[in-house]
């Protein structure tokens, strides 16, 4: 138990790193993902093509490769980014592809008549998307969006391999200091992740019950 108290501040720091990384990357992913979804359903072919290219590229590339590209690849064209911002960017850009697909499935679930009615009222494409289609779409995709974000929290562990001292980086570090306490460290790290993911799952349930559309 001494081991836990001695390293409590390490756990707290690592937990905050994981939490911060998750929040920032999540915001980036939600914003960019929504934008991408709007592009994918827009009437402008180049925008559709660009968004499709983005989604297919990131969705089919392992996150580790995305990390490698951003942390070690970009500096070769003189774009040096710090390790933590680099991790936010990697996880955020990667997750945005999945957010986009979740939101797009929600848009597809909105009855075509809704969009047609919006257009008939004289709303522009942007207005009908913002005021009519997206609000309904988001209410439909709360559970899958929740899954994407919870998976993202776990994906932040890859940042450990790229110099971000987050939760999973404690494993090698503390195990090297005292390999006898491997189990204790493992439990600590798992609990750290659960403190983030379990309330998220609960919140998703709550939100879903409140906003779900009965069809």
């Amino acid at each position, binding site marked *: 138990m001494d081991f836990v108290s001695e390293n409590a501040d390490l756990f707290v720091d690592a937990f905050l790193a994981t939490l911060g990384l998750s929040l920032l990357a999540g915001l980036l992913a939600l914003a960019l993902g929504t934008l991408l979804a709007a592009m994918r359903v827009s009437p402008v072919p180049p925008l559709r093509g660009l968004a499709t290219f983005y989604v297919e590229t990131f969705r089919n590339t392992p996150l580790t490769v995305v990390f*490698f590209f951003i*942390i*070690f690849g970009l500096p070769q064209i003189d774009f040096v980014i710090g390790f933590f911002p680099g991790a936010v960017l990697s996880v955020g850009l990667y997750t945005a592809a999945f957010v986009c697909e979740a939101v797009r499935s929600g848009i597809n679930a909105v009855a075509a008549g809704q969009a047609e009615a919006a257009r008939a009222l004289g709303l522009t494409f942007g207005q009908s998307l913002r005021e009519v289609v997206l609000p309904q779409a988001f209410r439909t995709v709360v559970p899958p969006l929740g899954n994407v974000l919870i998976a993202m929290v776990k994906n932040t562990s890859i940042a450990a391999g790229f*110099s971000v001292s987050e939760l999973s980086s404690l494993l090698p570090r503390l195990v090297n200091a005292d390999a006898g306490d491997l189990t204790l460290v493992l439990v600590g790290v798992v609990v750290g992740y659960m403190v983030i993911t379990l309330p998220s799952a609960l919140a998703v349930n709550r939100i879903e019950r409140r906003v779900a559309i009965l069809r």
Partner: protein
Amino acid sequence: MRITRYAATLGAAGLVLTGCASEAGQQAEQAASAAPEVAQDAEFPAGTTMAELAEAGSITVGTKFDQPGFGLANPQGVPEGFDVEVAKIIAGELGIAPEEIEWTETVSANRESFIQNGDVDIVVATYTINDARKQLIDFAGPYYEAGQDIMVATGNPLAIEGPDDLAGKRVCSVEGSTPAQNIRDNYPEAQLTLFDVYSKCADALRNGQVDAVTTDNVILTGLVQGGQGAFELVGNPFTEEPYGIGLTKGDDEFRAFINDTLEQAYEDGTWAEAWDRTAGAITGTEAPEPPMVDRY
């Protein structure tokens, strides 16, 4: 069209990923063709680990796959280097041919648990003997004595001469390694940047994301060689890192056997030959005086 775009993206990513492999590996490959002798009539007391391994005709060895000169996996996935040669000498004494050795990659952080779980029979992986590790596993050897040193960009722009100059500098090492812990404990002013493997540190130094890389001199020598003139060594080792061979705790017979094998290899010159073929071929240095085996 779409397929070619994918291919271009993946190809570019692949280039980044493989950028750290080097000609050092090729040199070692050419030099490592000579194989150590394999004992034909190896016999061991029944019930010992030696008897079991000799009976099975194969041994699982944990080593590093990313350290030129000591353990570096070639494109076929077969590791080469001084650690690998030492493992071959031990396997040879057990009557196991080099091609019957099963190589498992062990990184700094997973070596104890691999030994404890029986995933590997021995670990020969630039593995520093220390007391904390001795609580969990046993060490044969040492078979080499290294020291922690510092690697900087060619020309040493920040004039780093030793660990005391690291204050305020961005220093790269590997999470879970002894050198990283040493910097944390004794040079807290240095800003540590930690990756999971040293090759990433070399990339970061090349990109200017860190100011220096620190670990055992032998590892750095391999990185300097692979850096094609981008890096240089400060050349001021500030610790003593005796490298040992990790094995299951309490297997005293096996440990004594490995120690005997090492001493014999010191005597008959196979140890020095192994050095010349691998790390020596890369660094251009003569085989050092072998360290005293520590039979604790």
